[in-house]
């Protein structure tokens, strides 16, 4: 794990649906880390992720990735820079097969050459997908869909992968498996920024974390230390 700051979000204000959603938000993700962004429903986590991936643009502030200012870039150009987002609710292309969903993940130029290589790696991570590769995405179970979504995110050859609400609606067993996959991804040199409502689990799996509430970052630091914090335990663990 290096100290190189891969992603730097600086003092952004973001508006969504006509109302302000984020106030003066800053965060950093260093290369090789797993960083968690935790908070309750509606806190602004997804908005933050969408701003980083370029779907929304901040009204104020800046976003830097690998030294380059990406604040004004459109979502489809940011992918080429090396950021991939696994959206909330998986958002697979329902009428396309597992294989087609994965393949379209390598749409952007640099990833195309590596398609076969990345595909093999995805099938290694998720063997069940290889079995179901010709099945239509909409017929898969929730857990399988999440696997496809993550796999599709990996196909674009990212340096940073943003994962939005991975565990939503899935059984604890599957969620455990998925978190194990995150570590495998990190082992391959891909940095992970994770957004989760499941605060407990994300704090236990991540290196560092930010706690966000009603559009503002309220706490940040080493994930396990945050677990011990009085405020966090009261607010999220009910102790």
């Amino acid at each position, binding site marked *: 794990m290096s100290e190189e700051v891969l992603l730097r979000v600086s003092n952004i204000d973001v508006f969504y649906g006509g109302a302000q959603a984020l106030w003066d938000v800053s965060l950093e993700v260093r290369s090789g880390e797993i960083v968690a962004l935790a908070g309750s429903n509606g806190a602004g986590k997804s908005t933050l992720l969408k701003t980083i991936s370029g779907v929304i643009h901040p009204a104020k502030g800046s976003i830097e990735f690998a030294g380059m200012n990406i604040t004004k870039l*459109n979502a*489809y150009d940011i*992918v080429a820079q090396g950021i991939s987002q696994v959206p909330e609710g998986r*958002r697979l*292309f329902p009428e396309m097969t597992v294989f087609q969903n994965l393949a379209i993940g390598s749409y952007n130029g640099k990833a195309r050459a590596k398609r076969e290589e990345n595909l093999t790696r995805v099938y290694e991570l998720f063997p069940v997908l290889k079995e179901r590769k010709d099945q239509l995405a909409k017929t898969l179970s929730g857990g399988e869909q999440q696997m496809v979504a993550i796999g599709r995110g990996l196909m674009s050859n990212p340096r940073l992968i943003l994962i939005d609400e991975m565990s939503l609606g899935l059984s604890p067993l599957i969620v455990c498996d998925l978190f194990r996959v995150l570590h495998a991804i990190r082992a391959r040199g891909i940095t992970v920024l994770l957004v989760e409502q499941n605060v407990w689990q994300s704090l236990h799996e991540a290196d560092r974390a930010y706690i966000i509430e009603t559009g503002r970052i309220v706490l940040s630091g080493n994930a396990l230390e945050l677990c011990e914090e009085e405020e966090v335990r009261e607010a999220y663990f009910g102790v």
Partner: protein
Amino acid sequence: METLADLASPIAIGVLLGGLYVVIALGLSLVFGVMKVINVAHGDLVILGSYFAYVMSTSWGLDPILSLVVGIPLFFIMGVFIERFLLHRAFRMSADAALIVAFGISLIIQNGAQLVWTPLSRGLMTSYTLESLKIGDVYLPVVYLVDFAMALVVVLAVHQFLKRTYLGQAITAASQDSETAQLMGINPARVYQIAFGIAMALAAIAGVSLALTFPFTPKSGVPFLIIAFGVIILGGLGSMVGTFIGGMIFGLSQTLGGHFLGPTGQLLVPFVMVLVVLTIRPQGLFGR
């Protein structure tokens, strides 16, 4: 009492006619699937393709199908231009705005064509225009067979394009979930332009088919728009097989309608069918 044998000819021709309608419907379906907008000018653009083939044939002596070598790229570029400078702006305002702009374009093409080529009905004559193939008791005009063959080639080509190329898959993805497609690196604006360009190229091909088969006037476009719309609604969006079957059903409705009700029936029956389908089953036979 009509026997089945008497109906054999209209049935056979109706099925073959379906091929022509499939090509027209394919262009409409592509734009509708991706942009969720019905290009009401599509029928007129097909007629424009017919006039193009007519000009190539009469002024330059080119065989109409050969003229597609120029026609397809030309119409593709026109399509990209129309989308980029006219439809896209309207589309970003609202779906209604895009419909109205397309309607304006339809009128421009219809009346522009009328100014240039007069309301006189035109047609294309080639070496095979008057020939028929005799199968049993049925005479199958060669042009209809040519139309059907062209339709098969076109449908196959488009199907393979959509399935096997990155661009084709990008179009498919964008039509299912445009926001997520962006996360794949797909630029939706570019996808719309390409889709529209392809739709125009298909219109050029359909135009040639049409010109070989029927006489046409500047106002011939609207009935074809309506029937093509019926085809894609009946066949269900996104289903190639469905579109083909829809095309044949409408082709049959036209020939059988004409057989039983005279020339008025040729349009009346398909039109009424469109209304019925829209009312009863807007998601079509094969729709999801």
